């Protein structure tokens, strides 16, 4: 595998069974990253970015199902591992933080216990022994450990809860951290604090990061590369400066033309049409009904993600 030394996802397909029919949530996702690299995954609601993250953790549950694809992580295909083997990957080699940090913490256990439990599992020691490391973990994320250790989730603010989640996730020194919209539920000043903290800790810990966000600004600032998803596909991947300054895919262009930027007066065009219903997605390129440049082939054939320039990939027939 040449694309990414740490993670290489290919042809990942996930479906969800519902009363309305089968939702084709992921339609052959391609994604890869190297050790210590930060990859931003951006896209609008329902594009499949969170499903991709949960697939890596093998946390897709009924009624969802991974039906095809490979997720190479550190030389193993995660989709081939047994549940027990997978539990040695989760919380040891890959950690995850979520969008709603207060809901992500167990309401009946104290914060200290939940961190200790994570550490205990990753190091195969007892929870009591792990408590000695809880202080360090809390101080690492800038919390007053004596005060925080005995609190319950509902006694924390959103920002504090996300710090606790980060402490839990990074205390196990994972190779990869998956952050699923870690700041979307937070206020801008708190969001900036959390991102700054993550930036610092991840640099020190040399963790690779997959940051999932709908905010292109955050992805652009935090990540080395950005992957743009639309309706279950990765449609463009490029270094983060490049994707904003020289986007290739019509969807990426439309998205960037939709973002208001402070101090840069411009008209916002937006993208006409609506996101397709994934129970019955359009044939060929799933963006073609909304695309100004669509031609016949777009309706017939799903474009593959191909390299156009160094490190810049796009899935669009215009560039083939």
């Amino acid at each position, binding site marked *: 595998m040449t694309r990414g030394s740490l993670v290489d996802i290919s042809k990942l397909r996930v479906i969800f069974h519902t009363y309305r029919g089968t939702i084709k949530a992921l339609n052959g996702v391609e994604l890869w990253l190297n050790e210590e690299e930060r990859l931003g995954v951006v896209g609008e609601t329902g594009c499949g970015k969170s499903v991709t993250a949960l697939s890596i953790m093998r*946390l897709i549950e009924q009624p969802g199902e991974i039906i095809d694809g490979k997720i190479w992580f550190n030389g193993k295909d995660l989709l081939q591992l047994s549940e027990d083997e997978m539990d040695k990957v989760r*919380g*040891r080699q890959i950690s*995850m933080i979520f969008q709603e940090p207060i809901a992500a913490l*167990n309401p009946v256990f104290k914060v200290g216990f939940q961190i200790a439990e994570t550490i205990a599992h990753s190091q195969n020691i007892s929870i009591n022994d792990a408590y000695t490391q809880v202080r360090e973990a809390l101080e690492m994320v800038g919390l007053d450990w004596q005060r925080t250790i005995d609190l319950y989730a*509902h006694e924390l603010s959103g920002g504090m809860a996300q710090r606790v989640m980060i402490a839990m996730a990074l205390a196990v020194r994972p190779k990869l951290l998956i952050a699923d919209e870690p700041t979307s539920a937070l206020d801008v000043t708190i969001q900036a604090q959390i991102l700054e903290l993550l930036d610092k800790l991840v640099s020190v810990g040399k963790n690779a990061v997959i940051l999932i966000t709908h905010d292109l600004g955050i992805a652009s600032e935090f990540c080395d590369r950005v992957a743009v998803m639309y309706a279950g596909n990765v449609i463009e991947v490029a270094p983060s400066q490049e994707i904003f300054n020289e986007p290739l895919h019509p969807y990426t262009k439309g998205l960037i033309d939709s973002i208001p930027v402070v101090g840069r007066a411009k008209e916002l065009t937006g993208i006409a049409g609506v996101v397709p219903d994934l129970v019955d997605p359009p044939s060929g390129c799933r963006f073609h009904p909304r695309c100004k440049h669509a031609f016949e082939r777009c309706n017939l054939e799903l474009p593959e993600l191909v390299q156009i320039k160094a490190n810049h990939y796009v899935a669009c027939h215009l560039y083939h």
Partner: protein
Amino acid sequence: MKLGSFILRRLFLMLLVLFGVSVLVFVIAKVIPADPVGAILGGNAPIDLVEDMKRRLGLDRPLMNQFIDYMFGLVRGDLGTSLKSNRPVVQDIANFFPATLELAICATLFSVVLGIFLGILSAVYRNRFIDHFARVFSILGVSMPVFWTGLLLLLLFYFRLGWLPGTGRLGLFTTPPAKYTGLYLIDSLISLNLEAFKDALAHLVLPSLVLGYSAAASIARITRSSMLDVLRQDFIRTAKAKGIGKRLVIYRHALRNALIPVITIIGLTFGGLLEGAVLTETIFGWPGLGRYIVNSLLLLDYPAIMGGTLFVAVIYSLVNLVVDIIYAALDPRMRI
């Protein structure tokens, strides 16, 4: 809210409600019946008998005075005298209640243990054989009328097979144990009367089974749905992402959260047990409070009706109070 002030508040509310309860009992017994004396004596009773009866019941006095007397009586712990037994109602209740309590405790133990166990298995092995079994078991349990299952079991195990005793708390030839608590199981152990213990236990099996089954069924249903609800929460996903394994996710992270709502249901179930006891006691000739209330209702024994229903409401409110306090103590979110 501190737990202490929470308890105080609940106690205060309970007193308020209990005052309302006594008013309601008064209304039911004294205001609703159009012609209580006629109902007791029949329509053709001679006039002086009617007058006499009215005087005995205090019905010749204005309603307001009757109410005041009744409330003062309550405060002094005087519930009046039963028309049928001619004993103070308080004494009757003291005689009959231990039997009901013993039955309810046995049924509660049985139903809580079985119900929670089945409910958890059912949720964890959702859509597997054990889940289907548990769901059939519990939907039958909440559907079958208690008095009917009771009769059928009585027919089978007592009349046909003769394995278990049929009615009452003890066999005809067993001497009751010396009275300490009124609960035969405990009293017989204290007085080392093993004969009575075995007999009392045997008599308890069928009624507690009948009474406990429907309660177990509803607890199992609630536990299952509560557990399924918790298993969908975000923090369960976090626990799974930690890689601690399915067992710990379920038994450490999900179970404690799932059992919190189940606790409140146990309180409600206890109310169900009290009303189930009315039917069970009637079938099994159990000399308990439920049968006492039914009999006084059939005979329109006013003081007994008022005392009995009031007592049951007080017990039920107390149980719910205790349950609420346990709930608050278990759920850290209640202790803000």
